[in-house]
Protein backbone atom coordinates (compact mmCIF):
# COMPACT_ATOMS: atom_id res chain seq x y z
CA UNK A 1 0.00 0.00 0.00
CA UNK A 2 1.19 3.51 -0.79
CA UNK A 3 1.93 5.93 2.01
CA UNK A 4 -1.04 8.26 2.53
CA UNK A 5 -0.86 11.85 1.32
CA UNK A 6 -1.79 14.36 4.00
CA UNK A 7 -2.25 18.12 3.78
CA UNK A 8 -2.13 20.12 7.01
CA UNK A 9 -2.81 23.85 7.18
CA UNK A 10 -1.21 25.83 9.98
CA UNK A 11 1.60 23.27 10.15
CA UNK A 12 4.26 25.77 11.14
CA UNK A 13 3.36 25.93 14.84
CA UNK A 14 1.27 24.56 17.67
CA UNK A 15 -1.13 21.69 17.09
CA UNK A 16 -0.50 21.65 13.33
CA UNK A 17 3.25 21.29 13.81
CA UNK A 18 2.68 18.49 16.33
CA UNK A 19 0.36 16.78 13.83
CA UNK A 20 3.02 17.13 11.11
CA UNK A 21 5.61 15.53 13.39
CA UNK A 22 3.23 12.72 14.21
CA UNK A 23 2.42 11.92 10.59
CA UNK A 24 6.03 12.41 9.43
CA UNK A 25 7.01 9.59 11.77
CA UNK A 26 4.51 7.31 10.03
CA UNK A 27 6.13 7.92 6.66
CA UNK A 28 3.21 9.84 5.13
CA UNK A 29 3.70 12.16 2.17
CA UNK A 30 3.15 15.57 3.77
CA UNK A 31 1.97 18.86 2.31
CA UNK A 32 2.32 21.60 4.86
CA UNK A 33 0.91 25.11 4.84
CA UNK A 34 2.16 28.00 6.92
CA UNK A 35 2.62 31.71 6.70
CA UNK A 36 6.13 32.10 8.04
CA UNK A 37 9.19 31.72 5.79
CA UNK A 38 10.55 28.20 5.42
CA UNK A 39 13.90 29.39 6.79
CA UNK A 40 12.34 29.70 10.24
CA UNK A 41 11.25 26.08 10.35
CA UNK A 42 13.64 23.59 11.92
CA UNK A 43 12.20 20.19 11.10
CA UNK A 44 13.70 18.24 8.22
CA UNK A 45 10.26 17.45 6.80
CA UNK A 46 9.80 21.08 5.80
CA UNK A 47 11.22 21.04 2.29
CA UNK A 48 10.66 22.92 -0.94
CA UNK A 49 8.38 20.11 -2.09
CA UNK A 50 6.39 19.83 1.15
CA UNK A 51 6.04 23.38 2.45
CA UNK A 52 3.75 25.91 0.80
CA UNK A 53 4.05 29.37 2.27
CA UNK A 54 0.73 31.14 1.96
CA UNK A 55 -1.26 33.75 3.85
CA UNK A 56 -4.68 32.17 4.26
CA UNK A 57 -6.26 35.55 4.98
CA UNK A 58 -5.80 36.38 1.29
CA UNK A 59 -8.78 35.78 -0.96
CA UNK A 60 -6.84 33.68 -3.50
CA UNK A 61 -4.95 31.49 -1.04
CA UNK A 62 -6.81 28.38 -2.15
CA UNK A 63 -5.71 28.91 -5.74
CA UNK A 64 -2.08 29.24 -4.63
CA UNK A 65 -2.32 25.97 -2.71
CA UNK A 66 -3.96 24.21 -5.61
CA UNK A 67 -1.19 25.32 -7.94
CA UNK A 68 1.43 24.18 -5.46
CA UNK A 69 -0.10 20.69 -5.37
CA UNK A 70 -0.24 20.62 -9.15
CA UNK A 71 3.46 21.48 -9.32
CA UNK A 72 4.23 18.64 -6.92
CA UNK A 73 2.24 16.23 -9.05
CA UNK A 74 -0.24 15.60 -6.22
CA UNK A 75 -3.50 14.27 -7.59
CA UNK A 76 -4.88 12.53 -4.53
CA UNK A 77 -5.26 13.44 -0.90
CA UNK A 78 -6.09 10.97 1.85
CA UNK A 79 -6.42 13.63 4.50
CA UNK A 80 -7.14 17.32 4.19
CA UNK A 81 -6.68 18.76 7.66
CA UNK A 82 -7.92 22.32 8.19
CA UNK A 83 -6.05 23.39 11.27
CA UNK A 84 -4.78 26.95 10.67
CA UNK A 85 -6.60 29.40 12.85
CA UNK A 86 -6.26 32.44 15.02
CA UNK A 87 -7.92 33.75 18.12
CA UNK A 88 -8.74 37.08 19.71
CA UNK A 89 -9.33 37.63 23.39
CA UNK A 90 -11.19 40.66 24.71
CA UNK A 91 -14.49 42.54 24.77
CA UNK A 92 -16.15 42.19 21.39
CA UNK A 93 -16.73 45.90 20.99
CA UNK A 94 -12.99 46.43 21.20
CA UNK A 95 -12.08 43.97 18.50
CA UNK A 96 -11.07 46.02 15.44
CA UNK A 97 -12.85 45.35 12.16
CA UNK A 98 -9.58 44.25 10.57
CA UNK A 99 -9.09 41.40 13.02
CA UNK A 100 -12.73 40.35 12.75
CA UNK A 101 -12.20 40.11 8.99
CA UNK A 102 -8.90 38.26 9.36
CA UNK A 103 -10.39 35.76 11.74
CA UNK A 104 -13.34 35.04 9.49
CA UNK A 105 -10.99 34.81 6.49
CA UNK A 106 -8.58 32.32 8.07
CA UNK A 107 -10.95 30.34 10.30
CA UNK A 108 -13.98 30.14 7.99
CA UNK A 109 -13.41 31.30 4.41
CA UNK A 110 -10.04 29.60 3.91
CA UNK A 111 -11.15 26.09 4.91
CA UNK A 112 -14.30 26.40 2.82
CA UNK A 113 -12.39 27.68 -0.22
CA UNK A 114 -9.63 25.07 0.18
CA UNK A 115 -12.25 22.34 0.43
CA UNK A 116 -13.90 23.68 -2.69
CA UNK A 117 -10.60 23.65 -4.57
CA UNK A 118 -9.31 20.28 -3.33
CA UNK A 119 -12.43 18.17 -2.87
CA UNK A 120 -11.87 16.19 -6.10
CA UNK A 121 -8.46 15.10 -4.80
CA UNK A 122 -9.99 13.83 -1.56
CA UNK A 123 -12.84 12.09 -3.36
CA UNK A 124 -10.31 10.20 -5.47
CA UNK A 125 -9.11 8.34 -2.37
CA UNK A 126 -12.44 8.33 -0.54
CA UNK A 127 -10.41 10.24 1.98
CA UNK A 128 -11.36 12.58 4.77
CA UNK A 129 -11.77 16.32 5.19
CA UNK A 130 -10.92 17.19 8.79
CA UNK A 131 -11.83 20.43 10.52
CA UNK A 132 -10.05 21.45 13.70
CA UNK A 133 -12.81 23.30 15.48
CA UNK A 134 -12.92 24.04 19.22
CA UNK A 135 -15.18 23.45 22.18
CA UNK A 136 -15.63 27.25 22.07
CA UNK A 137 -18.07 26.62 19.21
CA UNK A 138 -20.66 25.24 21.60
CA UNK A 139 -20.18 27.47 24.62
CA UNK A 140 -21.03 31.07 25.38
CA UNK A 141 -17.57 32.64 25.19
CA UNK A 142 -17.93 36.37 25.96
CA UNK A 143 -14.22 37.07 25.58
CA UNK A 144 -13.95 35.07 22.34
CA UNK A 145 -17.25 35.94 20.65
CA UNK A 146 -16.00 36.09 17.06
CA UNK A 147 -13.66 33.14 17.53
CA UNK A 148 -16.51 30.99 18.87
CA UNK A 149 -18.71 32.13 15.99
CA UNK A 150 -16.01 31.22 13.47
CA UNK A 151 -15.72 27.72 14.88
CA UNK A 152 -19.50 27.26 15.06
CA UNK A 153 -19.68 28.29 11.41
CA UNK A 154 -17.13 25.64 10.57
CA UNK A 155 -19.15 23.02 12.46
CA UNK A 156 -22.34 24.00 10.63
CA UNK A 157 -20.54 23.82 7.31
CA UNK A 158 -19.06 20.41 8.09
CA UNK A 159 -22.35 18.97 9.27
CA UNK A 160 -24.14 19.80 6.05
CA UNK A 161 -21.18 18.90 3.84
CA UNK A 162 -20.97 15.47 5.50
CA UNK A 163 -24.46 14.61 4.36
CA UNK A 164 -23.69 15.83 0.83
CA UNK A 165 -20.49 13.80 0.55
CA UNK A 166 -21.77 10.60 2.12
CA UNK A 167 -20.21 7.66 0.30
CA UNK A 168 -17.67 9.83 -1.51
CA UNK A 169 -15.54 11.29 1.27
CA UNK A 170 -15.60 11.61 5.03
CA UNK A 171 -16.07 14.85 6.89
CA UNK A 172 -14.68 14.84 10.42
CA UNK A 173 -14.78 17.54 13.05
CA UNK A 174 -12.43 17.63 16.02
CA UNK A 175 -13.12 19.80 19.06
CA UNK A 176 -9.97 20.28 21.10
CA UNK A 177 -10.11 22.17 24.35
CA UNK A 178 -7.49 24.60 25.61
CA UNK A 179 -4.03 23.52 24.45
CA UNK A 180 -0.65 24.89 25.46
CA UNK A 181 0.31 26.66 22.24
CA UNK A 182 1.37 30.20 21.40
CA UNK A 183 -2.11 30.93 20.07
CA UNK A 184 -3.23 32.23 23.45
CA UNK A 185 -0.42 34.76 23.74
CA UNK A 186 -1.05 35.83 20.15
CA UNK A 187 -4.77 36.24 21.00
CA UNK A 188 -3.92 38.69 23.74
CA UNK A 189 -5.21 36.37 26.46
CA UNK A 190 -3.99 36.72 30.07
CA UNK A 191 -1.95 33.50 30.24
CA UNK A 192 -1.66 33.31 33.99
CA UNK A 193 -5.31 33.93 34.64
CA UNK A 194 -6.22 31.18 32.18
CA UNK A 195 -3.75 28.74 33.73
CA UNK A 196 -2.01 28.35 30.38
CA UNK A 197 0.93 26.41 31.80
CA UNK A 198 -1.45 23.66 32.93
CA UNK A 199 -3.00 23.16 29.49
CA UNK A 200 -2.09 19.85 27.81
CA UNK A 201 0.81 20.13 25.36
CA UNK A 202 0.10 20.14 21.61
CA UNK A 203 1.93 16.81 21.15
CA UNK A 204 -0.58 15.01 23.34
CA UNK A 205 -3.54 16.75 21.70
CA UNK A 206 -2.16 15.92 18.25
CA UNK A 207 -1.89 12.22 19.13
CA UNK A 208 -5.49 12.23 20.29
CA UNK A 209 -6.53 14.02 17.08
CA UNK A 210 -4.70 11.45 14.93
CA UNK A 211 -6.47 8.63 16.82
CA UNK A 212 -9.81 10.35 16.32
CA UNK A 213 -9.16 10.71 12.59
CA UNK A 214 -8.12 7.06 12.30
CA UNK A 215 -11.28 5.97 14.11
CA UNK A 216 -13.36 7.43 11.29
CA UNK A 217 -15.75 9.05 13.74
CA UNK A 218 -17.66 12.08 12.49
CA UNK A 219 -17.09 14.16 15.59
CA UNK A 220 -14.63 13.91 18.44
CA UNK A 221 -14.08 16.12 21.44
CA UNK A 222 -10.60 15.73 22.88
CA UNK A 223 -10.52 14.89 26.60
CA UNK A 224 -13.22 13.87 29.06
CA UNK A 225 -13.56 17.27 30.72
CA UNK A 226 -14.00 18.93 27.34
CA UNK A 227 -16.57 16.33 26.32
CA UNK A 228 -18.61 17.16 29.39
CA UNK A 229 -18.25 20.89 28.83
CA UNK A 230 -19.34 20.65 25.24
CA UNK A 231 -22.28 18.45 26.10
CA UNK A 232 -23.43 20.95 28.73
CA UNK A 233 -22.93 23.77 26.26
CA UNK A 234 -25.21 22.07 23.75
CA UNK A 235 -28.00 21.55 26.26
CA UNK A 236 -27.78 25.16 27.43
CA UNK A 237 -27.97 26.36 23.84
CA UNK A 238 -31.31 24.65 23.48
CA UNK A 239 -32.52 26.59 26.51
CA UNK A 240 -31.36 29.88 25.05
CA UNK A 241 -28.22 30.27 27.17
Amino acid at each position, binding site marked *: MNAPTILISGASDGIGLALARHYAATGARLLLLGRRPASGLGESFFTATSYCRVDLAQPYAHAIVKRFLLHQGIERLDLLIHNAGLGYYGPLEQQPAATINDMLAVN*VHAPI*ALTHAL*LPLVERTHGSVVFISSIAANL*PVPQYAVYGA*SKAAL*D*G*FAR*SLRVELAGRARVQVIHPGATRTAMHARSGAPLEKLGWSRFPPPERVARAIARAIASGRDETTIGLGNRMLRWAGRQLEW*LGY
Partner: protein
Amino acid sequence: MNKHCVITGAADGIGRALALRFGAAGYGITGVDVDEARAAQTQAELQRAGAEARFIIADLGQQAGVEHAAGELAQLPLIDVLVHNAGISAVGRFGALDLARQQAVLHLNLGAPLLLSAALLRQERMGRGGSLVFLASLSCFTGYPGAASYAASKDGLAAYARSLAAARRDLHVLTVYPGPTRTAHARRYSPDNRRESRRMPPEQLANAIAHAVQRRQRLLIPGAGNQLFALLGHLAPRLTEWAMRKTVLEKV
Protein backbone atom coordinates in the same frame (compact mmCIF):
# COMPACT_ATOMS: atom_id res chain seq x y z
CA MET B 1 -39.67 60.56 21.83
CA ASN B 2 -40.30 57.51 19.70
CA LYS B 3 -38.31 54.41 20.28
CA HIS B 4 -35.88 53.67 17.47
CA CYS B 5 -35.79 50.37 15.61
CA VAL B 6 -33.09 49.59 13.06
CA ILE B 7 -33.65 46.72 10.63
CA THR B 8 -31.19 45.47 8.04
CA GLY B 9 -32.65 44.16 4.81
CA ALA B 10 -35.85 46.06 5.59
CA ALA B 11 -36.99 46.79 2.05
CA ASP B 12 -38.55 43.41 1.40
CA GLY B 13 -39.59 40.07 2.87
CA ILE B 14 -39.24 39.46 6.59
CA GLY B 15 -37.43 42.78 7.08
CA ARG B 16 -40.29 44.72 5.52
CA ALA B 17 -42.84 42.86 7.64
CA LEU B 18 -40.76 43.68 10.72
CA ALA B 19 -40.58 47.36 9.73
CA LEU B 20 -44.37 47.52 9.34
CA ARG B 21 -44.92 45.66 12.60
CA PHE B 22 -42.53 47.79 14.68
CA GLY B 23 -43.75 50.90 12.86
CA ALA B 24 -47.32 50.11 13.88
CA ALA B 25 -46.12 49.68 17.47
CA GLY B 26 -44.88 53.28 17.42
CA TYR B 27 -41.19 52.80 16.73
CA GLY B 28 -39.32 55.13 14.43
CA ILE B 29 -37.89 52.88 11.74
CA THR B 30 -34.50 53.03 10.10
CA GLY B 31 -34.12 50.45 7.40
CA VAL B 32 -30.80 49.47 5.88
CA ASP B 33 -30.97 47.98 2.41
CA VAL B 34 -29.07 47.72 -0.84
CA ASP B 35 -32.17 47.92 -3.07
CA GLU B 36 -32.89 51.63 -3.44
CA ALA B 37 -36.15 51.31 -5.38
CA ARG B 38 -37.72 48.82 -3.01
CA ALA B 39 -36.47 50.78 -0.04
CA ALA B 40 -38.30 53.87 -1.35
CA GLN B 41 -41.49 51.85 -1.77
CA THR B 42 -41.31 50.41 1.74
CA GLN B 43 -40.47 53.81 3.20
CA ALA B 44 -43.54 55.33 1.52
CA GLU B 45 -45.64 52.43 2.73
CA LEU B 46 -44.44 52.95 6.31
CA GLN B 47 -45.12 56.67 6.13
CA ARG B 48 -48.60 56.10 4.75
CA ALA B 49 -49.21 53.87 7.77
CA GLY B 50 -48.21 56.77 9.98
CA ALA B 51 -44.73 55.60 10.96
CA GLU B 52 -41.58 57.69 11.02
CA ALA B 53 -39.30 55.99 8.51
CA ARG B 54 -35.99 56.44 6.78
CA PHE B 55 -33.63 54.23 4.85
CA ILE B 56 -29.88 53.99 4.65
CA ILE B 57 -28.80 52.60 1.31
CA ALA B 58 -25.80 50.35 1.82
CA ASP B 59 -24.48 47.01 0.61
CA LEU B 60 -23.74 45.23 3.86
CA GLY B 61 -22.00 42.46 1.95
CA GLN B 62 -19.10 44.90 1.51
CA GLN B 63 -16.95 46.23 4.30
CA ALA B 64 -17.43 49.79 2.98
CA GLY B 65 -21.19 49.33 3.13
CA VAL B 66 -21.05 48.29 6.78
CA GLU B 67 -18.88 51.29 7.57
CA HIS B 68 -21.26 53.60 5.75
CA ALA B 69 -24.27 52.23 7.61
CA ALA B 70 -22.50 52.46 10.97
CA GLY B 71 -21.48 56.04 10.19
CA GLU B 72 -25.02 57.05 9.30
CA LEU B 73 -26.47 55.34 12.35
CA ALA B 74 -24.06 57.28 14.54
CA GLN B 75 -25.90 60.46 13.50
CA LEU B 76 -29.31 59.08 14.47
CA PRO B 77 -30.97 58.57 17.86
CA LEU B 78 -29.80 55.72 20.08
CA ILE B 79 -31.13 52.33 19.01
CA ASP B 80 -33.72 50.49 21.07
CA VAL B 81 -34.09 47.49 18.79
CA LEU B 82 -31.48 46.40 16.24
CA VAL B 83 -32.56 43.55 13.96
CA HIS B 84 -29.90 41.76 11.95
CA ASN B 85 -32.18 40.44 9.27
CA ALA B 86 -30.39 40.92 5.93
CA GLY B 87 -29.48 37.60 4.42
CA ILE B 88 -29.06 35.71 1.19
CA SER B 89 -28.65 32.06 0.37
CA ALA B 90 -27.04 29.83 -2.20
CA VAL B 91 -28.48 26.40 -2.76
CA GLY B 92 -26.80 23.55 -4.58
CA ARG B 93 -24.19 20.86 -4.13
CA PHE B 94 -21.19 22.42 -2.44
CA GLY B 95 -18.64 21.32 -5.02
CA ALA B 96 -20.77 22.45 -7.95
CA LEU B 97 -21.89 25.74 -6.46
CA ASP B 98 -19.88 28.83 -7.40
CA LEU B 99 -17.45 29.64 -4.59
CA ALA B 100 -17.83 33.42 -4.97
CA ARG B 101 -21.58 33.13 -4.36
CA GLN B 102 -21.01 31.07 -1.24
CA GLN B 103 -18.51 33.63 0.01
CA ALA B 104 -21.05 36.39 -0.59
CA VAL B 105 -23.49 34.48 1.62
CA LEU B 106 -20.92 34.34 4.42
CA HIS B 107 -20.02 38.01 4.06
CA LEU B 108 -23.59 39.25 4.29
CA ASN B 109 -25.08 36.73 6.72
CA LEU B 110 -22.16 36.40 9.12
CA GLY B 111 -19.51 39.05 8.50
CA ALA B 112 -21.90 42.01 8.31
CA PRO B 113 -23.77 41.48 11.61
CA LEU B 114 -20.49 40.87 13.46
CA LEU B 115 -18.88 43.99 12.02
CA LEU B 116 -21.98 46.15 12.44
CA SER B 117 -22.63 45.01 16.02
CA ALA B 118 -19.01 45.65 16.98
CA ALA B 119 -19.04 49.10 15.33
CA LEU B 120 -22.32 50.18 16.95
CA LEU B 121 -21.35 48.86 20.38
CA ARG B 122 -17.95 50.50 20.10
CA GLN B 123 -19.68 53.83 19.44
CA GLU B 124 -22.20 53.10 22.21
CA ARG B 125 -25.14 53.43 19.85
CA MET B 126 -27.43 51.03 21.72
CA GLY B 127 -29.93 52.63 24.07
CA ARG B 128 -30.09 51.42 27.67
CA GLY B 129 -31.33 47.85 27.86
CA GLY B 130 -31.76 47.81 24.08
CA SER B 131 -32.46 44.64 22.12
CA LEU B 132 -30.23 43.02 19.53
CA VAL B 133 -32.12 40.53 17.39
CA PHE B 134 -30.33 37.97 15.23
CA LEU B 135 -32.13 36.08 12.50
CA ALA B 136 -30.48 32.67 12.48
CA SER B 137 -32.27 29.69 10.94
CA LEU B 138 -33.99 26.46 11.83
CA SER B 139 -31.02 24.88 10.04
CA CYS B 140 -28.97 25.50 13.20
CA PHE B 141 -30.88 22.60 14.73
CA THR B 142 -31.49 20.46 11.67
CA GLY B 143 -28.50 20.85 9.36
CA TYR B 144 -28.90 22.05 5.77
CA PRO B 145 -27.28 19.77 3.20
CA GLY B 146 -27.53 21.58 -0.12
CA ALA B 147 -26.73 24.93 1.48
CA ALA B 148 -23.56 24.25 3.46
CA SER B 149 -22.26 27.84 3.40
CA TYR B 150 -25.66 29.20 4.39
CA ALA B 151 -25.78 26.73 7.29
CA ALA B 152 -22.27 27.85 8.27
CA SER B 153 -23.30 31.51 8.29
CA LYS B 154 -26.34 30.90 10.48
CA ASP B 155 -24.57 28.61 12.96
CA GLY B 156 -21.85 31.22 13.30
CA LEU B 157 -24.39 33.98 13.80
CA ALA B 158 -26.27 32.10 16.52
CA ALA B 159 -23.01 31.36 18.34
CA TYR B 160 -22.04 35.02 18.19
CA ALA B 161 -25.42 36.08 19.60
CA ARG B 162 -24.94 33.65 22.45
CA SER B 163 -21.54 35.02 23.41
CA LEU B 164 -22.80 38.57 23.02
CA ALA B 165 -25.65 37.83 25.43
CA ALA B 166 -23.15 36.53 27.97
CA ALA B 167 -20.80 39.48 27.43
CA ARG B 168 -23.39 42.25 27.63
CA ARG B 169 -25.89 41.50 30.35
CA ASP B 170 -26.96 45.13 30.19
CA LEU B 171 -28.50 44.46 26.78
CA HIS B 172 -31.17 42.05 25.56
CA VAL B 173 -30.19 39.55 22.90
CA LEU B 174 -32.77 37.49 21.01
CA THR B 175 -31.88 34.74 18.56
CA VAL B 176 -34.62 33.75 16.12
CA TYR B 177 -34.61 30.44 14.28
CA PRO B 178 -37.20 30.81 11.53
CA GLY B 179 -38.23 27.89 9.38
CA PRO B 180 -39.50 28.26 5.82
CA THR B 181 -41.11 31.68 5.39
CA ARG B 182 -43.28 32.80 2.51
CA THR B 183 -41.02 35.39 0.90
CA ALA B 184 -39.41 36.00 -2.46
CA HIS B 185 -36.16 34.90 -0.82
CA ALA B 186 -37.59 31.44 -0.11
CA ARG B 187 -39.08 31.19 -3.59
CA ARG B 188 -35.75 32.10 -5.12
CA TYR B 189 -33.67 29.59 -3.17
CA SER B 190 -35.99 26.68 -2.66
CA PRO B 191 -35.67 23.80 -5.10
CA ASP B 192 -39.40 23.12 -4.86
CA ASN B 193 -42.13 25.72 -4.45
CA ARG B 194 -45.18 23.52 -4.77
CA ARG B 195 -45.94 23.66 -1.08
CA GLU B 196 -45.37 27.37 -0.70
CA SER B 197 -48.61 27.82 1.21
CA ARG B 198 -47.11 25.80 4.08
CA ARG B 199 -44.46 28.43 4.65
CA MET B 200 -45.08 30.89 7.45
CA PRO B 201 -46.29 34.32 6.27
CA PRO B 202 -43.68 36.99 7.08
CA GLU B 203 -46.31 39.03 8.99
CA GLN B 204 -46.81 36.14 11.40
CA LEU B 205 -43.06 35.80 11.92
CA ALA B 206 -42.69 39.56 12.46
CA ASN B 207 -45.46 39.47 15.00
CA ALA B 208 -43.81 36.63 16.91
CA ILE B 209 -40.50 38.51 16.91
CA ALA B 210 -42.12 41.72 18.17
CA HIS B 211 -43.72 39.79 21.03
CA ALA B 212 -40.46 38.06 21.87
CA VAL B 213 -38.69 41.45 21.98
CA GLN B 214 -41.36 42.80 24.26
CA ARG B 215 -41.07 39.79 26.58
CA ARG B 216 -37.28 39.94 26.36
CA GLN B 217 -37.09 36.32 25.29
CA ARG B 218 -33.66 34.91 24.47
CA LEU B 219 -34.71 32.32 21.95
CA LEU B 220 -37.56 32.13 19.47
CA ILE B 221 -38.46 29.21 17.23
CA PRO B 222 -41.63 30.50 15.59
CA GLY B 223 -44.36 27.95 14.86
CA ALA B 224 -45.23 24.63 16.49
CA GLY B 225 -44.12 22.59 13.47
CA ASN B 226 -40.73 24.29 13.45
CA GLN B 227 -40.37 23.75 17.20
CA LEU B 228 -41.00 20.07 16.76
CA PHE B 229 -38.52 19.82 13.89
CA ALA B 230 -35.91 21.70 15.93
CA LEU B 231 -36.42 19.38 18.90
CA LEU B 232 -36.09 16.41 16.60
CA GLY B 233 -32.86 17.89 15.24
CA HIS B 234 -31.56 18.30 18.77
CA LEU B 235 -32.43 14.77 19.85
CA ALA B 236 -31.95 12.87 16.59
CA PRO B 237 -29.77 14.96 14.27
CA ARG B 238 -29.38 12.14 11.75
CA LEU B 239 -33.11 12.08 11.23
CA THR B 240 -33.49 15.76 10.37
CA GLU B 241 -30.36 15.65 8.22
CA TRP B 242 -31.95 12.81 6.30
CA ALA B 243 -35.19 14.78 5.95
CA MET B 244 -33.33 17.84 4.70
CA ARG B 245 -31.40 15.66 2.31
CA LYS B 246 -34.67 14.37 0.84
CA THR B 247 -36.40 17.75 0.65
CA VAL B 248 -33.48 19.94 -0.42
CA LEU B 249 -30.35 18.19 -1.56
CA GLU B 250 -31.94 15.58 -3.77
CA LYS B 251 -33.92 18.25 -5.60
CA VAL B 252 -31.19 20.70 -6.44
